[in-house]
């Protein structure tokens, strides 16, 4: 056993890394070069252009994604909490049968569903009007930032809830029972006893959702009008309308920095938690 832990770790991680390096890191270099150069010389011109034209869209993108993540987290905690701590068999059963369905709908289909569902005269408003919950004149279209957030939350909540429910199911029931026996409400048990134990899973799921939402093109393209819009739409537009890969790549770098930022927040927390052990 002369193999040090460090070497073993590197050997174990190597196959995956090689794949990513060959299929993404290496091609990415060309993108980076194109984002930072003009006629073979280093320049920040493309970034300047990206900021000049799309600064509003950058803020818009971050706000949309952060809001969607927050709402997704909330909804997922409610669902997973009910699944783990719910006492009514029927409610838990119905919920369990229902909540996963959006998971199977690809983004592009989700976008298309929502486009006809959330519209002013779409199925949702029409149902409300038919049920007498709303006057026809009150109907408004949600096909703007609200539509994007609704689609993201709808699509990502099952993902986060599935992971969270799995983690909650695997924690020690005894502590939760003890909490209940001491008279704590289910809400308190969930927030004070259960959640802290599965924080890691929740954060992984949220960071992955964050990154996924940031890279989806079809939802902003199909659900909302284009002013303002998300960065993926701008990136596609730069390429399709102008054949301008440089600015598109600069936008790609900015997108990656945003998601790396979110990932680092998570990783830092993970590291600082590991230290005192």
């Amino acid at each position, binding site marked *: 056993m002369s193999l040090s832990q460090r070497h073993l770790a590197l050997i174990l991680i190597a196959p995956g890394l090689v794949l990513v390096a060959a299929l993404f890191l290496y091609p990415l270099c060309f993108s980076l070069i194109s984002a930072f150069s003009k006629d073979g010389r280093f320049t920040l011109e493309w970034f300047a252009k990206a900021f000049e*034209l799309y600064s509003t869209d950058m803020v818009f993108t971050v706000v949309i994604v952060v809001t969607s993540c927050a709402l997704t987290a909330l909804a997922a905690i409610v669902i997973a909490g009910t699944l783990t701590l719910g006492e009514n068999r029927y409610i838990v059963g119905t919920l369990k049968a229902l909540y996963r369905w959006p998971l199977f709908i690809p983004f592009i289909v989700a976008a298309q569903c929502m*486009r006809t569902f959330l*519209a002013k*005269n779409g199925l949702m408003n029409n149902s409300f009007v038919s049920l007498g919950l709303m006057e026809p004149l009150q109907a408004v279209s949600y096909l703007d930032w609200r539509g994007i957030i609704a689609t993201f939350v709808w699509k990502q909540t099952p993902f986060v809830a599935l992971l969270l429910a799995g983690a909650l199911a695997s924690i020690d029931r005894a502590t939760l029972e003890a909490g209940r026996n001491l008279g704590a409400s289910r809400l308190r048990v969930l927030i004070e006893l259960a959640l802290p134990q599965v924080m890691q899973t929740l954060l992984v799921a949220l960071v992955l959702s964050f990154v996924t939402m940031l890279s989806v093109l079809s939802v902003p393209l199909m659900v909302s*009008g284009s*002013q*303002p819009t998300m960065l993926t*739409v701008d990136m596609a537009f730069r390429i399709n309308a102008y*054949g301008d890969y440089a600015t598109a790549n600069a936008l790609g770098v900015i997108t990656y920095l945003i998601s790396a930022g979110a990932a680092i927040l998570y990783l830092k927390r993970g590291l600082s938690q590991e230290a005192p052990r």
Partner: protein
Amino acid sequence: MRILTIACSLAALMAASPLSAQTLNVASAGDQNMVDYVKDFLGPMFEKANPGVKVVSVGTGAGDSGSQKIFEKLDAQKGSATTDFDVVVIHQKAAGQMVKDGLLDKYTANVPTAKLATGEAARNALGTDVSGYVIPMFQSQTALAYNAAMVKTPPSTFAELAEWAKKNPKQFGYNGIKGGMSGVSFVAGWVYAFGGDAEKLMKGPYDAATKTTWDKAFADLKEFNKNATITPGNAGTLDMLNRGEIAIGPVWVDMFYSWQADGKLPPNMKLKLISPGMPGQPMYYAVPAKAGQKKLAEAFIALATSPQVQADGIVKKFNWYPGIDAANLEGKLDKAAWDKLFVDVTPADLAKNGKAFPIAPYFNDILEGYEKKVAN
């Protein structure tokens, strides 16, 4: 586990690779109906005439992004001996670029039907000389679609439309410039109407200073946008027309007809081509420079641009304007089918108000001007 995986992949690799030498790969940028047109109509017809040949039809997505994907794929294959595609169906912008980059074959001399297409579109794609490289598959045109139940007297000029939109806020909808060419076409029409010399934008020569003269037009458009609904894309505009959320919007004429045929638009929708005009554009048949099946590709295009196929397929089935000169279709088509094309937009309208898109550099100036001065 890993060995099993690799073994599986290898097995899959073997299973997927054999393709007979007589496969003609046709890539179409455009909506699903264009892919199906090759798959269901042209493909079987060609296979019947050429036993042993199989036509494979793939779609690359609607609009310019579909053409861009074909361009990118051909560009990625620059180092290979042959390309994956034998026939490509592309938009004007990509055609110009592919010709400049040497990705296309100068093939039309080998195709007899090329002589039947003599229009400007067969030679000039947004200012790039493409003669010899392309034959138009069909022509399409943008126009305003309106709901006749909601709009009794539709505006007939851009100025009237601006007035109308002010009186009926949020009843006019278009998709801006992202997500579809129908909105781009509206913006180009707006600049033609209010930005000065439209002829120069379509014919050139390019003068970088021209774009400064559009400031007023863009400022007015920004004002106009406050009363307009921004829709999500070509389909988004039709969608909102379908549900009665907007009353007027710019659409592609062919999409309009196929949506109506599919029951996704009310029967009382009508079209109007307002003056001074809106752009239209053709789709092109082209052959990649390194296509593996050039002879077959040429035979395929000859069939696709023959008068009978243009009459039955392009005009009758899809309501597109023919790619070859209309005179060649005489006698191949009953009058009713021909007249159906021109119910709302008459040939006279088309001649007067059917414009081309601006040449590429002006085109980019208009788009970027819009991004800077209207959307931002």
